[in-house]
């Protein structure tokens, strides 16, 4: 008899729901504690944490909201360029600069989304990808703002207030902290009205409307939060690499599509899926690029593509989804 077991009375608290992920988050910090003095690995980890955060940000609208955006590279690039320009032209510390940068990314995201959210499914994905490419061209031509194809170089002036560090592990720690913040926000979102509404919109727009949900407004709110966090991520990326050129920022395989790919493999629409996906994909990609890069240029993309195909065939809800389903089956048998 399962009846009395399943009906817990009181709603689970925020702390309890958070505790479910605390262990995994702490675990993801262990490699940094062990490898902090190894420059190669620290670099890989900095990217891993940054992309975990960015995939988790994408997951808000792409996973929870079911709006498969391939245009997040635009918000990422706006964050990068804005932080760099504010720092270089006005001397604004990146610690503050990330906020106006994120706001600008949000505004642009809303302007792009307003018309494109009327499109459904693959048409939305294609439209956002096209916008990414259009913005790529635009960035190439806007010499004064972006430095055009030559890009922007941020000079190396180490200092905490410049967000430029000699020790690379400090960057990795910064990215780790950012990842924690984004995951905390998703845990909150999953409990909040907006999170429930986004999931309802993904499941069935007609049923969502009948439940009093303004579908367009909810999508825009989800997109705003997602783009804001993506803009911050872009700003942190700018201060880490310090060389910003359009082919890097608007790259689909390395930026825009990668957010989606990491979420898909880790577990789209789950809280911890993007983190799991990033811990797997980013180091693997670095390894493949290193071993295949010389002999078979682009070979790592073929292998990542094959993994994505396999994941979408056999792990429809990603690694986290598969684990959760197995746990549920085991619990039912018990």
């Amino acid at each position, binding site marked *: 008899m399962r009846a009395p077991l*399943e009906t817990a009375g009181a709603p689970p608290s925020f702390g309890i729901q958070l505790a479910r992920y605390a262990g995994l988050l702490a675990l993801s910090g262990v490699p940094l504690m062990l490898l902090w003095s190894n420059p190669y690995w620290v670099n890989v980890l900095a990217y891993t944490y940054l992309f975990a955060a960015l995939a988790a940000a994408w997951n808000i609208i792409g996973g929870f909201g079911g709006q498969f955006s391939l245009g997040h590279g635009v918000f990422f690039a706006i964050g990068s360029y804005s932080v760099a320009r504010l720092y270089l032209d006005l001397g604004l510390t990146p610690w503050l600069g990330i906020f106006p940068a994120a706001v600008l990314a949000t505004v642009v995201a809303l302007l792009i989304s307003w018309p494109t959210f009327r499109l459904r499914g693959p048409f939305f994905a294609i439209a956002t990808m096209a916008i990414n490419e259009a913005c790529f061209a635009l960035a190439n031509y806007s010499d004064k703002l972006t430095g055009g194809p030559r890009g922007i170089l941020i000079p190396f002036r180490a200092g905490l207030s410049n967000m430029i560090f000699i020790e690379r592990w400090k960057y990795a720690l910064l990215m780790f902290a950012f990842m924690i913040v984004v995951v905390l926000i998703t845990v909150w979102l999953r409990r*909040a009205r907006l999170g*429930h509404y986004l999931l309802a919109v993904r*499941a069935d727009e007609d049923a969502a*409307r*009948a*439940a009093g949900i303004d579908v367009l407004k909810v999508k825009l709110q989800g997109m705003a939060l997602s783009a804001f966090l993506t803009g911050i991520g872009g700003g942190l990326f700018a201060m880490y690499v310090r060389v910003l050129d359009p082919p890097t920022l608007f790259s689909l395989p390395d930026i825009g599509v990668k957010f989606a790919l990491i979420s898909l493999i880790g577990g789209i629409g789950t809280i911890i899926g993007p983190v799991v996906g990033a811990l797997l994909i980013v180091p693997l990609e670095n390894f493949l690029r290193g071993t295949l890069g010389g002999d078979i240029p682009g070979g790592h993309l073929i292998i990542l593509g094959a993994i994505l195909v396999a994941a979408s065939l056999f792990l429809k809800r990603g690694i986290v989804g598969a684990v959760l389903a197995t746990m549920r089956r085991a619990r039912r048998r018990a």
Partner: protein
Amino acid sequence: MTEHFLSVEQATRRFAGLVAVDQVSFALDRGEILSLIGPNGAGKTTLFNLITGQLKVSDGAIMFRNERIDALPPHARAQRGMGRTFQIAKPLTGLSTRENVMVGAFLRHRAYTDAYDRASAVLDEVGLAARAEVPAAELTLSERRRLEVARALALEPELILLDEVMAGLNATEVTQVIDLIHRLNARGVTFLVIEHNLKVVRAFSRRVIVLDHGAKIAEGSAADVLSDPEVIRAYLGKKHVGHA
């Protein structure tokens, strides 16, 4: 014109050449349970969609609580106190049964714990409390129908539109749903119900409207309407008239 809780005035909906709903007028008073019957393809669900906003009227007007609502989007009508179920149940997959109901409850309760408690109460009411933590996609047909009712109920609506919620339920389950409707009605909830089972219609509805080919062909007490020759003809064909 007298003020009604809901009034549909000359509502018409055309799809290209087809007139799915043809100048239908009726009114519903607070606290009523009104049944909408008619053969397949008569336009019952289309009329529902016009009232709840899933479709817009081509002509005519719909008034709800003294406000003209026929231009409003569906979510705005839900916010004004309309809850509905769908003929083909739409469980929100990816969410648990409780979370499905919470999606409804969030309309009137912003805080997580309030929406949670409200959803628990509604799940109790429709007999789904034991299934609260199960993914909605795993519910059986009859549970899915109760979930539809639960999500509508969680909106705390003043008017509920039920689209064939009894279809596919066994006799015990039908009785449970009828009891639920009576309980809610006693608390002041008004119902507009599409139902095929005429026995069920007799059980809870004093007044019945019959649609055929998009037009209203009869309106009145359940007993009168169900013995009306034109209604029998619409349902059973010409040769049965007179035998009833």
